[in-house]
């Protein structure tokens, strides 16, 4: 396993050197990939490690973005207030979702998370006076110290890298192991003396927090927020990033995010039919590569794992 520090060093060099080597369009694209990598990793914590399949993850992403946009653009507050407020809203919404959704399991959980997220979308869409409705809220300015592409990139890189470190530590901690135990068997965990609900609640809120961070970064990236941030399609995009990358691998979803973003970039320059492409990816992945890219890699190159 000595390969890993080498791999990290290499990745670090690549990411740091990037803005000085490639055209600014690609710097922007990489920024977007980093943001969605964080978004996808946050969902993997919930789905892959805790075993809670949520179809409404975009709600946390979006509410953070909207909070920041509304506070900054409409109420002219500084980013030092808006940014934490956005994260706080994401955490609060995560708590609300968890309180309601954790009463159920399986299909009910899927349905409830989807329904709750759609309700939030509906509010963003319908509350024109506050959110701008379908038109969204334009005019968000990046803070002065990151007003150019490169420094914004480094801000995102720094925050995403830090978040990744935190998430990895979380996975490796007793709490992380407990989440995996819960994924495998809630009844067994209960019999061992763990308060399963509380663990799931905390996992939900943490996942929402990181999704909120991703949303906050994305709204500054876009300088604009619209109901698309919260739509089912957004939840679907982040879900397929997790699936393609490999559920329960944490870094797999980050790769999945890169794959989907790049693919979307290519597709949308050719055609309007991104939704069709997304649907086909879903169907194809389910039929041919349910374990994602990491799964395919493992099957091919690491078959000797089994005793």
């Amino acid at each position, binding site marked *: 396993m000595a390969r890993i520090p080498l791999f990290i060093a290499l990745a670090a060099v690549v990411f740091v050197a990037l803005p000085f080597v490639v055209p600014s369009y690609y710097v922007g694209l990489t920024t977007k990939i980093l943001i969605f990598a964080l978004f996808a990793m946050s969902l993997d914590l919930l789905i892959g490690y805790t075993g809670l*399949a949520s*179809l409404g993850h975009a709600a946390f992403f979006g509410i953070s973005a909207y909070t920041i946009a509304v506070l900054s653009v409409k109420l002219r507050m500084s980013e030092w207030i808006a940014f934490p407020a956005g994260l706080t809203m994401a955490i609060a919404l995560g708590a609300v979702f968890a*309180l*309601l*959704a954790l*009463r*159920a399991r*399986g*299909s*009910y959980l*899927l*349905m*409830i998370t*989807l*329904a*709750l997220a*759609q*309700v939030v979308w*509906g*509010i963003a869409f*319908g*509350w*024109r*006076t506050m959110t701008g409705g379908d038109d969204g809220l334009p005019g968000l300015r990046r803070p002065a110290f990151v007003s150019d592409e490169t420094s914004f990139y480094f801000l995102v890189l720094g925050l995403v890298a830090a978040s990744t470190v935190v998430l990895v530590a979380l996975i490796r901690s007793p709490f992380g192991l407990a989440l995996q135990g819960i994924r495998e068997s809630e009844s067994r965990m209960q019999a061992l003396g763990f308060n399963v609900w509380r663990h799931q609640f905390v996992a939900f809120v943490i996942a929402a927090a990181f999704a909120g961070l991703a949303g906050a970064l994305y709204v500054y990236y876009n300088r604009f927020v619209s109901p698309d941030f919260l*739509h*089912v*399609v957004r939840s*679907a995009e982040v*879900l397929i990033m997790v*699936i393609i990358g490999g559920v329960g691998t944490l870094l797999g979803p980050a790769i999945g995010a890169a794959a989907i973003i790049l693919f979307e970039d290519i597709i949308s320059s050719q055609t309007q*039919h991104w*939704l*069709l492409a*997304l*649907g*086909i*990816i*879903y*169907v194809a*992945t*389910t*039929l041919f590569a*349910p374990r994602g890219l990491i799964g395919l890699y493992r099957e091919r190159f690491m078959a000797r794992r089994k005793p």
Partner: protein
Amino acid sequence: MIWVIHTLNGISFGMLLFLLAAGLSLIYGLMKILNLTHGSYYLIGAYVGSTIIAKTGSFALALIVAPLVVALLGAVMERYFLRRFHLQELPQTLLTFGFLFIFADLMLWIWGGDPIVLPKPAAFSGSISIGDARYPTYRLALIAVGLIVALILWWFQERTRLGAMLRAGVDDAEIAGALGIDVSLLFTLVFAVGALLAALGGVLGGPIIGAQPGADFEVMLLAFVVVIVGGLGSLRGALIGGLLVGLLDNFGKIFFPELALFTIFVPMAIILSFRPTGLFGRL
């Protein structure tokens, strides 16, 4: 008097929701599949219906043919895709999710982005007097149709052997086989019937709600809220839940035009807090 009008509006809309929720519940009750394309079936039904009416001028024809077309679509989806992942929740969800987007895009491609409102059938395009107001007969017919379908489904569920099986949630091939039933055919049939009900709702709802991109997502959400409130797998739940949500949605739009979805959210949250499986649900 205006409240009677609003209530009737809520009830007629509720009947549409009932048709959707009934189909969703039916499919889930037997096959444990949460069909995310249910809203799509609704919309496809509405679009296909609109094309049939445009070409032939007959609402009745649309009402018969469109649901059958969608039923066929559902049968194909079940037989060639969902069948492979029997009882595996995540793959099934992913598949129906995928088809949701594929259908959405194709519908936009074929029928364009402008909303389409289906013309009412001649027989029901008038209105009758209720007190000092006039109320469209179409909506009253809609309520009647909803009740008739509810009765048919109830009869089927309570009085036939097949219905008993569905009620018991039997999906064990051996038991079903011992009863002389072809399970494979049953699954496809049930899925097709669920899709048919959704499309029927689409055609019936066409003159009122219309068809436009995004309606599939909206309708799916409402159907979900109905089964969350009424309970998955329960016909009674679909009816009561449908009426409840229909009324709430309607009155919500009147009182809180900008926040209509919030009025739906509240009962959903209440039910989830106290009866997570819904009013009549059984897990």
